[in-house]
């Protein structure tokens, strides 16, 4: 979080080009002296996009670029025409982000209070916030846990709460950064179903290749570059073969 370092001009009413997708133009990102992403240029317009690659390949940085959590060292990332560098807030309203570890994403002590956090930040009227909270509690089977402390939920329930917290903000797109890595098989399948049923466009970074069945496009990231890009039927076997 960049306390006290706000974007100079963050025009929420900036020109939005609906359906333009997410465009990366010659993106490079460097941590210290390490080049994490190098010359990535592509446009994501598909409804479901998967991102795979080894640990440390640059997947998570790639994911964070898509909603402005990380701005590129050079190059440009545009979300529906909005520049993540200068219009980060507007971008984050359009692109939700689900983290690998839900414990880091849940910031309020109880389930219902955490669901209300995002919409409150967006200035949504209180009665509408309550309506969304109830909707999410019902939708994800958390109604019985409304006032329960979040730290007492199971791992799967926490991840559902994290997803519900993002959905309560009504984003157009959602980026998932390894959402099933910490989950058991049953919860992995449950989260996969949840992602599958979403109306929003999704970008899913994952090591669970089964999650990508039915996706429209899969990117393979290696050493900061997109080395394969296509339908999962082609890219996933190619990636698996490369790991052998």
């Amino acid at each position, binding site marked *: 979080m960049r306390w006290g370092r706000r974007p100079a001009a963050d025009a929420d009413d900036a020109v939005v080009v609906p359906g333009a997708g997410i465009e990366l133009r010659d993106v490079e990102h460097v941590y210290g002296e390490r080049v994490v992403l190098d010359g990535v240029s592509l446009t994501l317009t598909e409804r479901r996009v998967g991102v795979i690659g080894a640990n440390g390949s640059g997947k998570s940085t790639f994911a964070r670029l898509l909603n402005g959590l990380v701005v590129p060292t050079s190059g440009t990332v545009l979300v529906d025409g909005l520049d993540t560098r200068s219009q980060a807030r507007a971008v984050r309203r359009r692109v939700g982000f689900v983290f690998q570890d839900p414990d880091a994403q849940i910031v*309020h002590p109880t389930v219902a209070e955490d669901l209300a*956090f995002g919409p409150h930040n967006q200035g949504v009227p209180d009665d509408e916030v309550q309506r969304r909270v109830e909707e999410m509690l019902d939708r994800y089977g958390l109604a019985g846990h409304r006032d329960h402390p979040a730290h007492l939920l199971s791992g799967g329930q926490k991840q559902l709460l994290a997803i519900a917290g993002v959905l309560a903000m009504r984003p157009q797109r959602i980026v998932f950064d390894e959402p099933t890595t910490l989950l058991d098989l049953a919860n992995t399948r449950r989260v996969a179903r949840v992602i599958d049923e979403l109306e929003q466009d999704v970008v899913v970074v994952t090591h669970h290749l089964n999650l990508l069945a039915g996706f429209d496009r899969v990117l393979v990231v290696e050493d900061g570059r997109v080395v394969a890009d296509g339908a999962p039927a082609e890219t996933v076997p190619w990636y698996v073969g490369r790991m052998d």
Partner: protein
Amino acid sequence: MLSLYVPGDSVVHRARAGLKLAVLAALGIGLFLVESPAAMAGALALVVVVGVTAARLPWRALAVQVRPVWLWLALLFGFHLLATDLRTGSVAVLRLLALLVAAAVVTATTRVTALVAVIEWLAAPLRVFGVRPARIGLVLAMTLRFIPLVAEKAARIREAQAARGADRIRLGMAVPLLIQVLRMATTVGEALDARGADDAPARRPRRTAAAS
């Protein structure tokens, strides 16, 4: 406070958090202005009755908060028997018990966000000094959220060290704990950004009565 809220729809649950905190503060001041054991016993009986009947709280919800201090109350009573007299000891113990139960009733009937909203309201005058009350509220809520999480991380580190033969708690566990907490803090910061914490309105929308 971490997990002491007991859901309900009683008149005490529905009362505004600010009113409950004001009554609690007034009770605290009032109890220190009186020195009668009968008055203290009456106050204790009153808060118990309010908790169990008006707020419809289970006995357990009140007992949970009193249990950890029984020993201290007994020690305090014993000290007074030795140093002062039975009457003074009774007043001191009954006063603390009444306050403790009253505080338990408030925390069991008030959501954390409602208490935090009161604190934000109290901090509102600090705006002239550039303080953002919503930030204070968020920090308090996050503190309550992350205490059990940090405790869990500490327990895991203790287990990991024990599994490798360290059977005593060592100062060295502070280093991995600190690293883990700092790493988590980075992700939490990102999550706050992603969830629009920087967009938060200067004033939170008014909460409905049901939410207090």
